[in-house]
């Protein structure tokens, strides 16, 4: 059965082609139906793939489906092929599952544009074409069986992201955000390209391909120099991952990416594309395992990004930006997870995060509709009574994000923190402090937006989300509440960790990790529960009864507030130390190299040819007798020559 797995790519391709060719004639509801049905068909295919894998014995759960030969030079060949194993199928399930609900939601959401006017049929169709294209590319990325194909998907999702961030192209801020995302991502992609070239150099002869399995097989018994080079390769891969997954130092594009329509923020910039970096590291784990230095850097980048982004999220007032920084922070957790070798936990958090963050973004979209495009939480308040469904959905998402005990985010974050503690209590400390901040800022958003009295005209007249958007949100709510039970920790028994067992074959090559014992697990479990509740309580104290001590707590940190509101001046730093100097270099090349040298040479050739022509043209007088004379003189000279010779 698995040899037909390629149809998972066929559906989004068909969807986008149908909408591209016939969409304009068939109307909005048809466009949305085709696009969503395509993703749903892919989801069913992914479920089928999971079932087919389950039927195989554990050791055989890695199937390669060859589609066609792509590159074949001498002994080296790269095929377009799908690698179907528990990890890629899980990713495909998350992408198509969350993607389907978001398509469904967008069918209603995108009926109006950013100014609450009717969206034109053309743009509506274009939006769904881009979305299907994104799904196609994301599936290409996660199902790739070699690095080159992964690179194709990697670039493809980057393109989709660029197109969708700049979807409101008439807004300069959106167009600039799209460019920024694309350019910052290019820096990371450059790392990926170099890493692939390096791997080609190291393994091209020996493995004869760039397929994951071949490269990992070639690692066994490779000379020491190759093993040492892994540190460099993995650092380049890490650069790529920090770009795509918005980690330090390349995280700056993600907050700006919120300029895109909200379903895009949910799908691309929260649930799926940004997790590609985590997926890529987990997929390349045999390389990373050989480079302990890189692993430590991954873990620390993750922890620091989590902390930094969470601290910025505390002072943001734009609802979507709070969620954007929270996404960066949560991606930091995933990096922390894979960095300490807890790949299963990292992927687990990736999955639960996809549910609750997609939910949060989509409910934020509902709020945005209700508020006529206003996203400032200072101008909200009291929305709980106006839009109760949205309130409960947002609350579920926020609680899951905050790590409220027994919800999705709690289990996965706890799994990461537990493994981090075993590796280094310091990493755990950073993580747990971030968890406190996370609980605080997520409930700050809940209390500011939904509780209290309305603080603006729009908030007074907010209305509940339209019916078409409700159903997908309930599905995602269920995910945010219960997805965590797929990955229960060890203290609930060997078989409680369904996800861990599912992913087991992928990470079977890893040495059995150390165990801290059940008492440690329970202690950390209780600590993180307490921390989450403490964060929620502080938010409550500060924003609902507005107790004095909570306010004075804010005063203590007021010197920090300025730093946080300016996001540590990272954007400004990049602007003046990287972007501006590069621009000046570009200007110089534009003026001197391009303007003088190249243009001078090209224009010069033309100019001198014209001048020479004008000079020679003087011979052509148009006087017949002159021509005749030159003719006679010529003949005379020739005759003279023969006479003398």
């Amino acid at each position, binding site marked *: 059965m698995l040899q037909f797995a390629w149809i998972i790519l066929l559906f989004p391709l068909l969807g986008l082609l149908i909408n591209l060719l016939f969409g304009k004639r068939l109307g909005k509801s048809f466009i949305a139906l085709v696009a969503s049905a395509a993703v749903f068909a892919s989801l069913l295919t992914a479920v089928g793939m999971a079932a087919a894998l389950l039927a195989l014995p554990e050791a055989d759960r890695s199937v390669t489906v060859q589609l066609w030969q792509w590159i074949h030079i001498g002994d080296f060949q790269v095929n377009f092929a799908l690698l179907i194993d528990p990890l890629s199928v899980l990713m495909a399930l998350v992408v198509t599952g969350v993607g389907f609900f978001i398509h469904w939601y967008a069918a209603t959401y995108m009926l109006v544009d950013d100014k609450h006017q009717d969206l034109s049929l053309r743009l509506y169709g274009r939006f769904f074409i881009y979305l299907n294209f994104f799904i196609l590319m994301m599936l290409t990325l996660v199902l790739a069986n070699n690095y080159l194909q992964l690179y194709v998907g990697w670039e493809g999702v980057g393109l989709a992201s660029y197109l969708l961030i700049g979807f409101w192209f008439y807004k300069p801020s959106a167009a600039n955000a799209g460019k920024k995302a694309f350019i910052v991502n290019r820096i990371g992609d450059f790392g990926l390209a170099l890493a692939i070239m390096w791997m080609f150099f190291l393994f091209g002869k020996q493995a004869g391909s760039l397929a994951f399995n071949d490269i990992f097989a070639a690692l066994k018994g490779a000379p020491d120099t190759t093993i040492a080079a892994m540190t460099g390769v993995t650092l380049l891969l890490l650069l790529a991952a920090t770009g795509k997954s918005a980690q330090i130092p390349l995280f700056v594009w993600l907050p700006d990416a919120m300029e895109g329509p909200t379903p895009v923020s949910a799908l691309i910039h929260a649930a799926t594309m940004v997790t590609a970096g985590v997926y890529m590291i987990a997929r390349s784990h045999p390389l990373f395992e050989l480079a302990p230095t890189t692993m430590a850097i991954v873990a620390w980048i993750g922890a620091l990004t989590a902390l930094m982004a969470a601290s910025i999220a505390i002072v943001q007032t734009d609802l979507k930006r709070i969620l954007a920084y929270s996404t960066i922070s949560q991606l930091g957790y995933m990096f922390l997870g894979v960095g300490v070798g807890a790949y299963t936990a990292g992927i687990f958090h990736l999955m639960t995060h996809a549910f609750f963050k997609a939910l949060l973004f989509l409910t934020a979209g509902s709020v945005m509709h209700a508020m006529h495009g206003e996203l400032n939480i200072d101008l909200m308040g009291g929305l709980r009574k106006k839009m109760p469904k949205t309130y409960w959905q947002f609350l579920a998402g926020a609680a899951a994000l905050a790590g409220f005990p027994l919800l999705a985010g709690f289990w996965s974050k706890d799994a990461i923190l537990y493994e981090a503690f075993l590796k280094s209590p310091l990493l755990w400390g950073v993580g747990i402090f971030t968890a406190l901040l996370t609980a605080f800022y997520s409930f700050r958003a809940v209390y500011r937006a939904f509780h209290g009295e309305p603080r603006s005209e729009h908030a007074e007249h907010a209305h509940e989300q339209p019916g078409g958007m409700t159903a997908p949100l309930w599905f995602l709510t269920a995910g945010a509440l219960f997805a965590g039970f797929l990955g229960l920790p060890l203290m609930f028994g060997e078989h409680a960790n369904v996800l861990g067992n599912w992913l087991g074959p992928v990470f079977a090559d890893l040495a059995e990790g150390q165990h801290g014992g059940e008492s440690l697990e329970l202690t950390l479990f209780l600590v993180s529960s307490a921390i989450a509740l403490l964060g929620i309580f502080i938010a409550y104290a500060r924003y609902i009864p507005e107790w004095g001590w909570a306010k004075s707590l804010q005063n203590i940190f007021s010197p920090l507030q300025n730093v946080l509101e300016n996001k540590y001046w990272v954007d400004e730093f990049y602007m003046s130390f990287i972007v501006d100097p590069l621009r000046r270099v570009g200007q110089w090349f534009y003026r001197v190299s391009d303007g003088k040298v190249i243009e001078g040479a090209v224009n010069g050739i033309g100019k001198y040819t014209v001048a020479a022509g004008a000079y020679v043209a003087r*011979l052509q007088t*148009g*006087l017949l*007798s002159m021509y005749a004379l030159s003719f006679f003189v010529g003949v005379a000279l020739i005759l003279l020559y023969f006479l003398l010779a």
Partner: protein
Amino acid sequence: MMTPTSFILILSAIIFTIGAVGVLVRRNALIIFMSVEMMLNSVNLTLVAVANQWGNLTGQIFAFIVIAVAAVEVAVGLAIIIAIVRHKDTTNIDEVHLLKG
């Protein structure tokens, strides 16, 4: 007594030169045309004379071909001159310099 071939060749050269100078110095298209005819006929004279000298018929036949071609050329040339006259109302070739670069 036969006229020596050299006399005929000298006469032919003189006619040719008159024709060539006529082409170069005259402005009237018709005169230039006549000068060209003189040059052609001087060549004919040469061909016939030399053919006679060597007792070879090739040159004489060649002269007939030249006469036939000259007749054709006259037809075309006169047509062009008439067209120019209709167009510009002149036969002065200095006033017809459309090919000036």
